[in-house]
Every structure is written in C-alpha cells, then in structure tokens.
C-alpha cells in the first residue's frame, strides 16, 4: 500500500500551516470576532465626555489598551498548549509528521497576529475619532510610538500567556492566572515599589505604561487621608522596550521548551 504522505514540509511551512489553522480556529470560535467588536466599540466610550485636548482624549482612550492586550493574550494564548492536552485533541494533532516546536510556534504567532489586529483596530478608530474631533493637525505626534509600544507589549503579554498555558493543565486555570499575573500581581508589585520609592523597571506592566506616557501625558498618585501625592516613575522608552522584548523572548522560549516536552 503506497502512502499519499510526502515529505515536502519544512519547519517554516509547518509553522505557517499551524498559524493558518489556529487563525481558522480563532475565527470559528468567534473569539476573534468578539475582540474585533470590542476593539471597535470601546474606543468610542471616551466620546461620552471629551477632554479639551487631543492629547487628553488619546490618553483617556489608551488607558484601556493594557486591559485589551491582556484580555486578548488570555483569550488567544491561554489555552494554546494546555487546551490541546485537556481536550485530548493532542491525540489527533501530535501523532503526525510535524515538528512540535513548529506547531507551538504557529500557535504563538496566531495569538500574536490576532492581538496585533485588535490593537491596530483600536488605534485606527482612535485616530479617526481624534482627527474628526480635534482636527488632524492636533493629532499627538507620538501616536505611532504608542502604537509600536502596544505591539511590543503584546508580544510579552502573549508570551506570558503562552508560558502559563504550557505549565498548567487546565485552560480555565491558565486563563485566570494570566489575568491575575498581568492585571493584579504585577500592578500591585508596581504600586508597592512605587510607594517605597523604588522604580519597578523590571516589571513588564510598568513598561507597558509607555503606551500612554510616550504621548507626553503625566500622572501622579494621590495617597493617604490628606491626598498626599506620590510621584510616579515613568519608564524610559529604551529600557521599557528592552524589558518587554526580554519578557517575550524568555517566556516564549521557556513555554516552547515545556510544551515540546509535555506528555499526556
């Protein structure tokens, strides 16, 4: 009996194949559709009460960007690895002539592509709104830098979700833990260190503040019964980017190493 299987695939084409299959799955599960709708509608919320300046408007809108990225990372990458083992689709997917690392690389890239898409949509809507409300000349000139920072932060956030997914066994646990890490544990750590007047430069969510601070917005933290103001630190662009890229590289590499060795 002659098999129809032929050896035409390399690691790159396997990754591409896995990426396309993952995108199809995200589309069919309607997760992508849900986030696309959110990324289109939520930037309209600041219209309820518009600030005087375009910078203020953009700053208000982009205040939600970190949340959107975390939600997107958790939804697209939270079950990327553990979901296959939990639902036993690993028994269908893995006994095939594919490099496992290629499969997981495709999964990471697909989650990243979906996150990039929702971020891009948000910025597109925000740009159109800002231009329409305040005029194109008032557009914050570092909007592109903010957009770039959001994309870089998303590589780290999706990387964290991917790592958590490769460590845990259940999709729901992985998704919740991703939220806890990026929405509670890290921000609380940043707050504590800020109160101790120590810059939390190594925490990735602190670096994510660049999404708004690159526009030129500043903030301070009122604390205590008399509303004493604690000066917040502002991440520098270069170091923030390095921290985010480091998180992405380390988390993806560690997640990949664990996922490839994972057994039923």
């Amino acid at each position: 009996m002659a098999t129809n299987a032929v050896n035409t695939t390399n690691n790159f084409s396997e990754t591409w194949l896995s990426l396309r299959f993952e995108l199809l799955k995200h589309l069919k599960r309607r997760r992508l559709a849900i986030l696309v709708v959110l990324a289109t509608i939520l930037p309209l919320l600041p219209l309820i009460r518009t600030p005087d300046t375009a910078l203020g408007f953009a700053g208000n809108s982009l205040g939600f960007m970190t949340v959107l990225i975390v939600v997107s990372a958790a939804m697209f990458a939270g079950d990327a690895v553990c979901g296959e083992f939990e639902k036993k689709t690993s028994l269908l997917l893995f006994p095939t002539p594919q490099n496992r690392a290629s499969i997981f690389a495709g999964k990471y890239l697909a989650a990243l592509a979906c996150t990039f898409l929702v971020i891009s949509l948000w910025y597109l809507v925000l740009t159109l709104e800002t231009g329409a409300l305040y005029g194109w000349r008032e557009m914050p000139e570092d909007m592109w830098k903010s957009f770039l920072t959001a994309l870089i932060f998303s590589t780290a956030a999706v990387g964290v979700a991917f790592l958590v997914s490769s460590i845990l066994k259940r999709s729901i646990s992985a998704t919740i833990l991703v939220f806890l890490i990026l929405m509670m544990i890290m921000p609380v750590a940043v707050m504590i260190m800020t109160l101790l007047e120590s810059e939390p430069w190594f925490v990735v969510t602190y670096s994510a503040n660049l999404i708004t601070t690159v526009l030129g917005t500043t903030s301070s933290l009122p604390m205590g019964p008399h509303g004493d103001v604690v000066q917040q630190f502002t991440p520098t662009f270069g170091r923030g980017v390095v921290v985010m890229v480091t998180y992405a590289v380390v988390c993806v590499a560690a997640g990949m190493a664990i996922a490839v060795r994972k057994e039923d």
Partner: protein
Amino acid sequence: MEYAIRTENLTKSYGKTFKALDGVSLQIKRGEVVGYVGPNGAGKTTTIKILTGLVRPTSGHAYVNGTDVAAKPKDALRSIGALIEVPGVYDYLTPHETLTYFGRVYGMRRDMIDRRIKETLELVRLPDWEHKKTGAFSTGMLRRLAIAKAILHRPDILILDEPVLGLDPKGIMEIREMIRQFRSEGMTVFLSSHLLSEVAEVCDSVVFLDKGKVVSTDSVEGIGQRMDHGVAAVRFLRPLSPQDIERLRSIDLIRSVDVKNGTARLHYDGKPESSVQILKILVSLNLDVVSYAAEGVGLEEYYVSVMSDEKGVN
C-alpha cells in the same frame, strides 16, 4: 527482515517505582493484523503512545518501517495512521476543515486532499456530514471521523487503540468490517484491545501484555489449537442406548464418555489425529453422527491462564 513495527526492550517508568512498560519487544511483519491484548493498565496505550511519538521511552527503541520513532519522529510518523484512546475533536470545525488541515500536514496536494476526504468519509459512513460542525456528532461518529483522519493519507501502518470502546454493537460491527477491508488492502494493523472477541475476529496473531510485560505471543490459529483440551462433543440422530454408550467406551482412543441432553462428550488425548480417528470410528459404527466438534476452553479462559502466568517471555 525489516518489520513494519519493531520494538526493542521498550521500558517506560513513571517515577522511581512504577514501570508502565518493562522490556517490551515486538516484531510485526508488513501486512499483518496483530492484536495487542491485556487488562486495563497493562501498558498497551503506553506502547502505542511511544510508537506514535507521544511519549518518550525511558529506555529501548521503537521502530516504524525501520525508522527509530524517537530519533526521527517525522519520518516515522509519515507512514502511520493512528487512533489513540478517545481523541478530542475541534468541535467548532467541520470534518472537511479538520481533514483538510491534516491532509496538508501530510503534504498532500489540494485535489488529492479533497478526493481523499470524500473517499474516507464515504468509507466511515459520514459523507453527509462533511460540512457540519463536529460538535453535534455522536461518540460513534467521532470515532469514525478519527479513523477517517487516521487513514486519510493511506498509511502503510494503522495503529488502533481500543477502536470499539464505547460503541454500540452496530458501530462495533462497522469498525470490524473496516479493519477487514484495511487488511485486504495490505495495510499493517496493530490493534490494541481488552476485548478478546474483537481480536479473534480480525487479527492474524495476538500479543498478550500484562503489567508492562509481554506474556505470550501466538497466532490466532495457534491459540485455537492450544485451547483444544481433549473433549469432542458429539450429537447423534437418535438417543444413545446403554449398549451404544458401552460401544463408545470400548474405543481405545476414548478415555471416558459423558452423556447429557442428547450430547455425548468424548474425552480423549487432545491430539487432532486422535480426534479424526474417533470420528472415523463413530461413522464406521453406524451411530448416525449429526455433529462433531472439538471443544476448547474459552478464549477468556486462555486469557486468564496466560495473564495469571507470572513469567514474562521477554
């Protein structure tokens, strides 16, 4: 000789104390249909997971068409189709979408993928479900879809792990018929099951596994001969008279005779030649034999006797 499947002293340990596999060596020729039988927890699925690259052995080697699965998994898995345990499906996808992806994984051309999807879904009796989401499928349909995925690329070797688990009698018959068809097409089939009747129906030979060790290997025919324990059940046209029974007892080859409900059970030495000779004598005595059958111990009894043997053959 290059075997379709060969394992050498395959061992899989979990922790320091538990050995799921303990030196399993198998040799399966091309075109053979081999049953892999053992109680739950014997190590059948672990063996299959090693053969399909899902699990790495602690020691030993597994070869598929001469290729070491652990060393070159992609090469080894290209010629394998596998149904392992009860695989999950992407319930938001249709069989067409799922099988198209796997067709691409096997490097098949688009037109070939479309043709094979039609052929395999026809074979597993799901042609009308090609574009329906699998979330609505029954257990039997999901199992048949998993088989369709396993044979999509026309593998040389088909590995089936408990393929009839959870199926109704009709589903079991359909799977059995499929396996016979695969055999007629020259496919090597390695079938793990804890159902002896399943294995006896479709396999050429059987490997018995217990506590991670191979305890017996034999052809189905050989097992049948071994199960012959020296009793021939004979029915006669008329009830036997005391004189007839006495005539039976006087035959040298017959050790004793029991008569119950019109059937005489003749005890002899169990040799096939003796059985033939006894039948000839009965005919020559004009006892009007209606039926004559060598009784064996049940396959289950054989299984129990093999499994209770502490000594492995590896």
